[in-house]
């Protein structure tokens, strides 16, 4: 009888994950003993958990290790993304603290679910094996289905949850089938091993066809997650129906996690096939830009507009992903950095924008029409300024964070020899500026049509201030963020 050997586990790799999952489970129990009227406490505890997990990551900087049979990886790339996810989760919870009671949907499970979703995102960033990526994807998705339907008194929320579930299950199927084909072609589900097999060029034509077909299916699956065209259809409906903070989390956290996994998959496993996937992804990026931005142009509902805009931003991030896989030298490195910087900038900006929408929402009444923003400058000047900063950042106007993100991915794509997509990218950026500007014009240049909105809760004010100041500070002093992402290479 062979002895069962339990391989040593490098707990450093799983520290942050353990904290988040462990604390979320403990919180579920604690929540039972918290009276309904003080549910907010669970929210504070969840934020504390996120902060502790983020702090636990600080000594891990520089660690480059794998564990659980090389299924889970910790490197500077995943650590940076983990911090981003934790920040997004914390801001989302802060924004929810006031929103939930106002909408009459406050339940302690909400905060716990946000933590579980964060754990799912972290799995996607740390997964070095297709199984882990699938696990992360499903964990994240299932939690988000529940959260999307959390505003159950509203039919739209329930409908959105259902829609997201159906589409998400469909996308999950693609990923599983793709993984099966990849395994069949290479005999492994480890990203690095797949990459090495490919590099040795030992695959037969048949195997290579399976590999590419499998890869295409996996990309489709993640394409749904990051809402890139033509897999974006669900996004506007789901964003509109979901509770607004969750729409924010969907647009930044879930998208960032999808890109984190997509990038690692394409660069570690499929770098050898860059010549094939780069043009395909470039075409998809252009389609995504066109669909997202032209769709946003026609919207009168600000929440839907932000949904389309978030589709459009997926296109720009894809520029970075494409560059990240480029063989040889600086382009690949710049691509990874560009994706990370773009995600950081976009996270703060979009959470700020959704925060403003939250501040405008009254109970049981949607305030998402363009007209509801009219004259906001006269009613609540700071709210208008925060929204304007976020809109300018989304449009990529300096000196805001969004500008550096765009600058970075454009430069990376040009370096990767994809100058032509940057030309299309800037043309679309100039079209996109129009609808962001329309919101600014609405807030500053139109007469108010509604009475002053409710006073803003302090927590919400803190969340908004954090996001907006983040956008401005990153815009004026991008150096620390750029230095951070520049120390990040895949697997370093």
């Amino acid at each position: 009888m062979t002895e069962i050997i339990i391989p040593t586990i490098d707990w450093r790799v799983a520290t942050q994950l353990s904290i988040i999952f462990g604390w979320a489970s403990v919180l579920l129990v604690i929540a039972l003993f918290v009276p309904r009227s003080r549910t907010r406490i669970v929210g504070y505890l969840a934020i504390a958990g996120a902060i502790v997990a983020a702090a636990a990551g600080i000594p891990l900087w520089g660690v480059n290790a794998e564990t659980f049979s090389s299924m889970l990886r910790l490197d500077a790339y995943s650590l940076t993304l983990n911090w981003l996810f934790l920040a997004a989760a914390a801001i989302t919870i802060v924004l929810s603290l006031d929103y939930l009671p106002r909408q009459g949907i406050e339940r302690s499970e909400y905060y716990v679910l946000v933590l579980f979703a964060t754990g799912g995102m972290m799995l996607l960033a740390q997964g070095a094996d297709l199984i882990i990526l699938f696990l992360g994807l499903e964990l994240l998705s299932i939690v988000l289905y529940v959260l999307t339907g959390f505003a159950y008194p509203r039919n739209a929320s329930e409908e959105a949850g259902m829609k997201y579930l159906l589409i998400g299950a469909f996308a999950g199927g693609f990923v599983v089938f793709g993984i099966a084909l990849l395994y069949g072609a290479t005999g492994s589900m480890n990203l690095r091993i797949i990459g090495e097999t490919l590099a040795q060029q030992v695959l037969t034509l048949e195997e290579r066809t399976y590999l590419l077909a499998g890869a295409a299916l996996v990309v489709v699956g993640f394409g749904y997650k990051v809402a890139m065209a033509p897999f974006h259809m669900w996004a506007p409906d789901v964003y509109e129906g979901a509770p607004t903070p969750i729409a924010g989390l969907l647009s930044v956290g879930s998208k960032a996690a999808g890109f984190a996994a997509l990038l690692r998959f394409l660069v570690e496993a499929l770098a050898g096939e860059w010549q094939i996937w780069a043009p395909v992804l470039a075409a998809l990026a252009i389609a995504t830009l066109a669909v997202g931005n032209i769709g946003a142009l026609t919207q009168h509902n600000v929440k839907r507009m932000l949904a389309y805009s978030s589709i459009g931003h997926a296109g720009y991030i894809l520029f970075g992903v494409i560059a990240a896989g480029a063989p040889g030298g600086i382009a690949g490195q710049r691509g990874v950095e560009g994706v990370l910087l773009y995600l950081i900038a976009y996270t703060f900006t979009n959470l700020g924008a959704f925060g403003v929408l939250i501040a405008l929402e009254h109970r049981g009444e949607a305030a998402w029409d363009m007209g509801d923003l009219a004259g906001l400058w006269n009613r609540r000047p700071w709210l208008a300024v925060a929204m304007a900063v976020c809109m300018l950042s989304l449009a990529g106007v300096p000196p805001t964070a969004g500008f550096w993100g765009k600058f970075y991915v454009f430069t990376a794509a040009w370096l990767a020899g994809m100058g032509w997509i940057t030309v299309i990218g800037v043309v679309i950026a100039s079209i996109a500026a129009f609808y962001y500007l329309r919101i600014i014009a609405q807030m500053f240049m139109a007469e108010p049509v509604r009475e002053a909105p409710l006073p803003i809760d302090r927590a919400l004010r803190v969340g908004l201030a954090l996001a907006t100041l983040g956008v401005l500070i990153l815009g004026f002093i991008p150096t620390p963020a750029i230095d951070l992402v520049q120390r990040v290479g895949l697997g370093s």
Partner: protein
Amino acid sequence: MNSVPLLSIMIWLPALGALAVLALPRENVAAQRSVSLGAALLALASAIGVAFLFDPARAGFQLVESIAWVPSWGISYTVSVDGVSLWLVLLTAFLTPVALVASWGTVERQERAFYALVLFLASGLFGVFTAQDMLLFYVSFEFTLIPTALLIGIWGGVERRYAAIKFFAYTFSGSVFLLLGIIGLYLLHGQATGVYTFDIATILASLQLGTLRLDIGTERLIFGLFFIGFAVKAPIWPFHTWMTTAHAEAPSSGVVDIIGLLVKIGAYGLIRYNVQLFPATAAWAAPAIGVLAVIGILYAAWIAYQQTDMKRLLAYASVSHLGLIVLGIFALNAQGIAGAVAHMVNSALTTGALFLVAGMLVARRGSRELKAFGGLWKATPWLGSLTLLLALGSIGLPGLNGFVSEFAVLQGSWRSPGLGWRYALPAVLGVALAAVYLLHMYRTTFMGDTPPELAQAPDVRPRELALLVVLAAPVVVFGLYPNLLFGPMQQSVTQIAQGMLPFLTSR
């Protein structure tokens, strides 16, 4: 390296002043006015200090102040002035307090935000004219958009939202191409020399020494990307429509026109980037751009004559002047470029002053229609005579400022091998048309019969008198002593023109 970072003080003072103004209580307008004006005057003092420290005998960038911004990318906060930018810096510094004083009493609501935005705008403009780093330039260039769009959109006329969005959309669309051009040049320079930097002086040196060689197609592409950005911003015909809408809908006092729209960032960019960095392509493109410029001069002058609205008339006048400036730049010789820079200063002064006059007239009559006016000379003789002086300066009467710069531009374009008399002659016609439309405007407002509503119109008030005298002083001084204007820029302009020489003679 000077010990006191005078340029940075000048750039950041207005922005700090703006923050200080925003921190003041909303009701205390008097304090807001004095703080904003104080910041603007201190910036003016710093600009004058810069002018004294500037050595006119040297070409190239002076008073360089540099701090690394994003070192890993070769992006730095590097500011400096040369002969071309010095005058535009001085112009901005001069017009900021003028605009602030002109806005007193004409801004009815939210004064605090208005003053803050004017100051932010001034900081952005200083940044544009002093940036020696391409990315810093781009950031400042874009930064000027936001305050200008808000100034038009919040305080402007009936169609203000349309005008503000149009202004922003046009300029932003142009400037994304500029960004692409900057990225392209940066990467090409980095790949060729191994030095990744956005510093203009370094890139210029590499281009001149031949360490960075662009093949002709690439050079034309990059030139084109820069050109689109600046042509829309300038604006060169046929991209000018945002400009006339913006002028027409800007607050009627003329404040935003003078600081937001008349300071010619686009034309400056054409000199600094298109001409200086890519002389060969500039020489290649000069005839075509010259055609656009000449069409702009004549077309805008003709449309100006057709206008019945005072501000629209001045808006088209400004587009016509811009055509002349672009013609001067693409004469690609020292006279032409010097004339163009001088004309940027002169036309901003005279057209800006006329916009303020228009604002004063509107305040007295409540209408911008030329037909509503007449015979104001009798009621307001002082206003009449000062306006006449400014109009004559704008027309180009010898002895006043417009003449010297127009003459230099026309002389330059006539002698330019790329342009020649075919371009100069129609431009002369455009200058003659300027006399037609401006005198037409003057005649209908100040001459003839006085409508009863205007019989009791008050003459210039002390504040208005001070504004117009301050603006009219350089009109006379530059006219009588043009060397004051041309002297400091001579070395820099000659250097640019010399860079052009090999490409002009080889034609």
